[in-house]
């Protein structure tokens, strides 16, 4: 039985520097061995702005991603530079449909250091890659992991995120491999 390669599309949303999409693509290829395409960008998500919270509703942006066909991509990851929230949480670094097709990474809060000063580009890119890998894990139905040395470990703060590695623990690696097998079946 021939297995179909899994293709993931990375979609810049709004006006973003191309380096972010390239970083995410490189990490998905390097760490998860996925085939990645950088897709044409989508417009700024004004429709998802919540005036009360002055933030953008991650759920609405995910819905908008769902309306685009992305025919060649099994999974789609949007990168956005706005502050994302889900109704119960003050903010999220990223959001994904658990076991679904669409995920988001927000650069907004990743840009700062803990003291409020801008984070260096290298740190920003590393954080972006981690959030993207983490959300991709969710797309393949991986759950949050209790192991701190695993990219699927939940990070609520930038400090947590900076301490999280880029790789998966051995159990999450096994789960991901099984998920890839399932996803590759024609």
């Amino acid at each position, binding site marked *: 039985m021939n297995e179909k390669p899994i293709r993931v599309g990375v979609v810049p949303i709004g006006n973003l520097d191309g380096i972010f999409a390239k970083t995410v693509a490189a990490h998905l290829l390097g760490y998860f061995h996925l085939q990645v395409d950088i897709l044409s960008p989508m417009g700024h998500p004004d429709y998802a702005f919540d005036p009360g*919270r002055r933030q953008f509703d991650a759920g609405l942006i995910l819905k908008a991603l769902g309306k685009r066909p992305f025919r060649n991509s099994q999974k789609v990851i949007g990168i956005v530079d706005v502050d994302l929230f*889900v*109704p*119960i*949480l*003050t903010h999220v670094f990223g959001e994904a449909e658990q076991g679904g097709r669409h995920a988001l990474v927000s650069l907004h809060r990743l840009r700062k250091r803990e003291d409020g000063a801008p984070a260096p580009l290298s740190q920003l890119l590393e954080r972006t890659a981690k959030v993207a890998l983490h959300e991709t894990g*969710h797309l393949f139905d991986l*759950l949050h992991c209790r192991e701190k040395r695993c990219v699927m470990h*939940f990070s*609520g703060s930038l400090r947590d995120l900076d301490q999280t590695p880029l790789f998966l623990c051995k159990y999450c690696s096994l789960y991901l491999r099984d998920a890839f097998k399932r996803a590759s079946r024609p």
Partner: protein
Amino acid sequence: MDEKMSIMIVDDEMIIRESFIHWFRKYGHRVEAAASGSEALEKLEKTAFDLLFVDIKMPGMDGIELLERIKEEYPDTIVVIITAYGSIDTAVKAMKLGATDYLLKPFKPEQVTLVMQKVAQQRALVSQCRYLRDRIEEMTRFDNIIGQSPKMEEIFRLIPEVAQSNSSILIVGETGTGKELIAKAIHAKSPRANGPFVAINCGALPDTLLESELFGYRKGAFTGAVSGRKGYLDIVSGGTLFLDEIGEISPKMQVDLLRVLEEKKITRIGDRHPIDVDFRLISATRRNLEKAVAQGNFREDFYYRINVIMIRVPPLRERKEDIPLLVQHFLQKYSRETAKRVDHIDREAMEILKRYDWPGNVRELENAIERAVVLSKSRTLGSESFSFLAAPQPLEVKRRSLREVERRYIEKVLEECGWNVTRAAEVLDINRVTLHKMIKRYGLQRPS
């Protein structure tokens, strides 16, 4: 958020419910949602949940009312209150009503993680407490009957079984094996548990007194009966009567009791009108009643009436594996009672206790530990605390006169107390003058 839990979100806003569901599923928890307090209660009736997130402001039943209902009906369920209308007053009220935590919407992701960690700790504590309670209950399953040996396990298995019937039970075993404790345990596990448990030592009462104690009497029934009195057979109605040393009762009393057991009626002494009685009889004996029946010293019909179910309690020498458990139990008991921190026993001392034959059974072991704790000057009991056990063995004691045994015992206690007469008198529970007289009478002398 290590442990997988079963969570319910109770909030009238759909978007909040969905958001919670989505969030907690990422941790692998089983999540359900209810849009109102009444829907939540309906779901709780069908399924057990470990944790509920409850919004305060909801139409109909609000979160505080729901919290009260949950704590009343499902006290083990952990509730975390959520609200966008938070105030200190509501928070205090919610916590007083038993909420584990309180969150203001929207939460920082770390706050949810912290709450979940707290909940996990609380669950772990509750389950640890439950485990320890079960463990203690398992070890001291029936009052203070302690044991893990197969013979005791068999008795523990029997107790709840026989407790359900109303049949008479005969408990057979040597003195000090805990026959009364077993009788109490049967009563406690029986449908009569709410009724009285009356214990009478038949061996300690003369026949006439036993009769009036059991049957009661009418005013003027005999000299001194200035007023009437209910007997224990009447008082115990609805409960359990425990007759210890039943082998000691007279043939006449055997007949009287046989009649009561068959007719379920008693007539007070000096009275003519029978009264209905309803009790369950548990008897105990250290004698071999079968042999007594064979020799014609005990009525056969009465023996079979009181011996519908027989429980044999093994002597301590036949369940020596229980000794360490019993020792620990008595050490704790007497450390507490004497307010002394004597909570250890060394290996050599334990070996002495395991080697000894314990003719007085558990009661003798308890006395030995009590004595050792009272005399101990350190936290750990050593072999010297039980040197008295290694000396005269019970058979040897039997062959000596009581006077000789008393003399040797006083001498031993004096030696252990370093010939401090005041302390020795305390241990012997006599006053100093009496002890001095005894020392003189027995010609005891302090070694030079």
